[in-house]
């Protein structure tokens, strides 16, 4: 492999791809939909669990593969619908999405024992669910997709989702969605049902996160409640912040960089991994509110002198700050 000099094998590269996919899901809903979800890990975990449970019940991998995308998307639609139709925003949205993950985390941790069985699958509580059927070639079930082929499979899916989202953003729906991010009231006054649009965006993000979870389940060959942990949700946010929300490539880059850093940190025991992640998040918020990728991209465009700067500067994202200002305004009423 070309990347072997970096000390990475395809096993690690696969998980970087999965992280990138998860980062992409949050980057999409946050950067383009203006929805900051503090519990994106919920849909990641739901995808992984949905795959594992379905795979044990069906004994085949491909129906579970699609279930692992559709189920989290549906849950995201229902939960998101509840939030958006209640017109919850900003901090309340953040709190409730966080609480949502925590409920799942706590619940999955106590599902040890005979009472918690879905079909043939035991939820297994703290220990999670091992031993399910992993992905294999549809035309030859004895040929499993693992190792190098799982990496190429994940990479192609990442590329596919990336291109799919890019196409979606260019479509009328995507443009409306960006319009909603820029000015919810105006979108509403144009006659768009903002609640519905945000719910749809949230569901798409949930589906992509579910796909990442499904691949993770295939990679790790076990699913545990830690997929729902606060730390996992925080990590996704760190990737997106480091890479820069408001672009699709930023979150992928952020996930790859931070995932690789985690991999390097895992090889030593002097400094705690979590400490570094935390420090990165604090510093990123304080020093790089727009993320790394937009900064690099700006420098690049300035160098090549292409006239894109005004556009990119404003469409690239400061929704956090901007939305907050808007919220303060509405508080005064």
């Amino acid at each position, binding site marked *: 492999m070309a990347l072997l000099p970096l000390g990475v094998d395809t096993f690690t590269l696969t998980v970087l791809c999965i992280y990138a996919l998860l980062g992409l899901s949050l980057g999409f809903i946050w950067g383009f939909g203006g929805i900051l979800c503090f519990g994106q890990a919920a849909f990641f975990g739901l995808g992984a669990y949905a795959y594992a449970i379905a795979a044990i019940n069906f004994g085949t991998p491909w129906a579970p593969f699609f279930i692992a995308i559709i189920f989290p998307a549906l849950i995201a639609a229902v939960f998101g619908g509840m939030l958006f139709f209640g017109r919850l925003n900003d901090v309340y949205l953040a709190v409730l999405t966080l609480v949502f993950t925590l409920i799942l985390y706590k619940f999955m941790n106590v599902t040890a024992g005979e009472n918690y069985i879905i079909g043939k699958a035991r939820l297994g509580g703290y220990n999670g669910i091992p031993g399910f059927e992993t992905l294999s070639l549809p035309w030859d079930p004895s040929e499993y997709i693992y190792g190098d082929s799982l990496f190429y499979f994940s990479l192609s899916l990442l590329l596919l989702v990336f291109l799919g989202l890019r196409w979606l953003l260019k479509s009328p729906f995507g443009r*409306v969605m960006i319009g909603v991010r*820029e000015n919810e009231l105006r979108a509403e006054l*144009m*006659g*768009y049902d903002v609640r519905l649009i945000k719910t749809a965006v949230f569901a798409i993000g949930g589906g992509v996160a579910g796909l990442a979870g499904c691949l993770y389940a295939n990679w790790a060959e076990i699913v545990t409640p830690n997929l729902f942990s606060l730390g996992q949700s925080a990590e996704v946010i760190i990737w997106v912040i480091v890479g820069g929300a408001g672009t699709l490539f930023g979150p992928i880059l952020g996930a790859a960089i931070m995932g690789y850093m985690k991999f390097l940190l895992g090889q030593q025991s002097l400094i705690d991994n979590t400490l570094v992640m935390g420090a990165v998040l604090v510093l990123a918020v304080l020093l790089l509110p727009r993320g790394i990728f937009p900064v690099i991209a700006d420098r690049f465009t300035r160098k090549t002198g292409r006239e894109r700067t005004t556009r990119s500067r404003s*469409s690239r994202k400061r929704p956090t700050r901007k939305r907050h200002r808007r919220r303060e305004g509405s508080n005064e009423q």
Partner: protein
Amino acid sequence: MSNNIVVEARDLTVRFDGVVALDNVNLKLQRNELRCLIGPNGAGKSTFFKCLAGMQLPTSGEMIVEGEATTGYDPFRVARLGIGIKTQVPSVMDGLSVHENIWLAARRTQSTRKANGIVDDILGRLKLGDLARQDVSTLAHGQRQIVELGIVLAGDPWLVLLDEPAAGLTGDEVERMVNVIKEINDYATLIVVEHDMHFIRQIAKMVTVFHQGRVLIEEDVDTVLSDPIVRDVYLGKRR
């Protein structure tokens, strides 16, 4: 009640934490009318506007648009009745270009191709052609007002609500605004909330004066502007 009444407010009342912003307001609007709502700050004209636009839930009373009770409607449902709304502070999509802003408004009801046609037409009508590809965030306040007007027109509304359309415009732009408003009035009903008496004089036919949450007087523009009570209210002599 004649069929020509398109907007009717019945005993509309809005209270914020004990302050009465609107106090039993009754108001009727005929089709194809151009109605100006005026009054000093805090008179309730903007609150009335927001109730009609779905941006403010009245404490009591009813709002009826073409026989349909719209009280408690969300703004998007109000908009879907064919009502175009321009807010007081220009509400535009900052990170998007002028073209995209207007396109989004047109695209809600039209196909992409038709929407493109509508945008070109509006850019021409409002003389925004040169700015089409610019980010709205880079525009001056007056230009943003015009862009917002373009957004409103792109939805092809039969009823247009404008909240302080002349605020912050240069003399030149005011003139353009006056012309556009008159043009719109050829085919649509208009409600204009305004502060600027000079501007009112140029466009108004019927004027409703708000004062302390109530309708003080409702007459044609010349009667209103020569009314001593109205003058006192504006100059703050009364109460």
